[in-house]
């Protein structure tokens, strides 16, 4: 069934977009930054793949799940979506976890003095 792999990748990427949108993690936090990070990540991983393919280390399988469109020598179109998913997932995870971590740190660091109020988020930053 050609297109199964591509379909799953697009589905997963869409999931990343929804999480990003819902929790303001990456593109919905800072669009330009996110675009630059994703661009650098994609270019780096593509260069890595091309290098590996050039050295005949890994190559495209003949799986019937692939749509059969190549964007480069031994480089199926699906790989672009896979690399996007890898970068997007890394950044969504990192963004969510660092928010969780700083939230936790703020709770424990907060001095327990009667009458003091928790500093607003902007004051800490």
């Amino acid at each position, binding site marked *: 069934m050609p297109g199964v792999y591509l379909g799953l990748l697009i589905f997963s990427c869409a999931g990343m977009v929804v999480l990003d949108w819902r929790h303001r993690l990456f593109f919905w936090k800072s669009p330009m930054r996110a675009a630059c990070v994703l661009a*650098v990540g994609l270019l*780096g*991983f593509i260069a890595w793949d091309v290098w590996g393919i050039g050295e005949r*280390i890994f190559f495209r399988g003949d799986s019937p799940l692939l749509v059969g469109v190549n964007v480069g020598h031994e480089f199926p179109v699906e790989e672009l979506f896979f690399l996007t998913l*890898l970068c997007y997932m*890394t950044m969504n*995870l990192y963004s969510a976890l660092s928010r969780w971590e700083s939230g936790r740190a703020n709770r424990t660091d907060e001095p327990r003095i009667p009458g003091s109020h928790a500093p607003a988020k902007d004051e800490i930053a």
Partner: protein
Amino acid sequence: MSYAFIVLVVLGIAAAIAVASLLLGARISWVAASLSAVVLFISTGIFDNLMIGVGLFAYNEDTLLRLYVGSAPIEDFAYPLAAVLALPALWELFGRWDPADVRTIIRSSRPISWVNTAYPFAAAYLLSEGNIDSTFVVGTLFFLVPYNLLMYGVNDVFDYESDMRNPRKGGVEGAVLPKRLHRPILVASAITTIPGVIWLLAVGNLVSGILLIACVAGVLAYSVPPVRTKERPVADSITSSLHFVGPAIVGLAFGGATWTPQLVAIIVSFFFWGWASHAFGAVQDVVADREAGIASTATVWGARFTVRLAFLCYAASAVAVLFSGWPGPLAAVLVIPYLFVVAPHWNVTDETSPEANRGWRSFLWLNQIAGFGVTMLLIWFALGD
């Protein structure tokens, strides 16, 4: 080559990005990064096995370490590791930058001039190699942005004192750079230049590599003390011209061109054109440069001598191109407008030298016409080949 070797190089680069980001002030949350890595490793372990299992891709066993997690080669785990090392670091680094400062740094590389260095490389490479390949793309991108940041951005850092006193700087012709941006510019120049140079050195031969390094060294020598050729008469115009001729020579070397006398004639013509343009450009700054205590062809030999030198160099450029292969000699026509722009200043004095700015400004659009004309000739030449 083994997969492990590639992995080591890639992880080295990813780690370098992380370290560089930290040094530049990025605050990475290591807890978040480590937890992300754990999740990504587990996902990789599951999905890599699935993907290999259904035959989406395969490996050449001889290049592997033959250590597996299920059927996934251990090397594959470098993908999430590299991602988690480099991407959060970049994210935190970019977050520390003021968008206005980023724009200033990009402006310092003179985007209006980017094409002037990328084009000579691209045209020279394409005509000698005949194909668009990865070297063409990387080389053109390298000479488009990093090379210009290295040239103009670094130049602005070392020109700071004199530029502060020159009212002409600050518009399209240049930008006075706040002192706090000096270090970021030098760092940005290094970070954008080094990967391109390494790539080009790796794919080129000995001669092209030496020429590339000479080209980059020439750009630095122009403004960086103690060499700082821009303050040495003659050497200033020659290095400046080589900034633009250099990419063409490098392009020819990477493309494996044969150095016929006709080809040398074109390069010599281009070189004289660059020399003339630089010399004439310095005339308008005679007063400002003298006040700032900066030497140049124009301050040492005077505005009038320099204008006449520029005129003769343009003439030499027109003559040299006559010796190139057909239809090259037609390019001599493109040089004539420059003679007309420079000629009115033939009797300029040091006092009236700022007037030369008018002539220099017309270069900005004259260069576009000349570039268009040269392109037409190149296409004609390529089609006739």
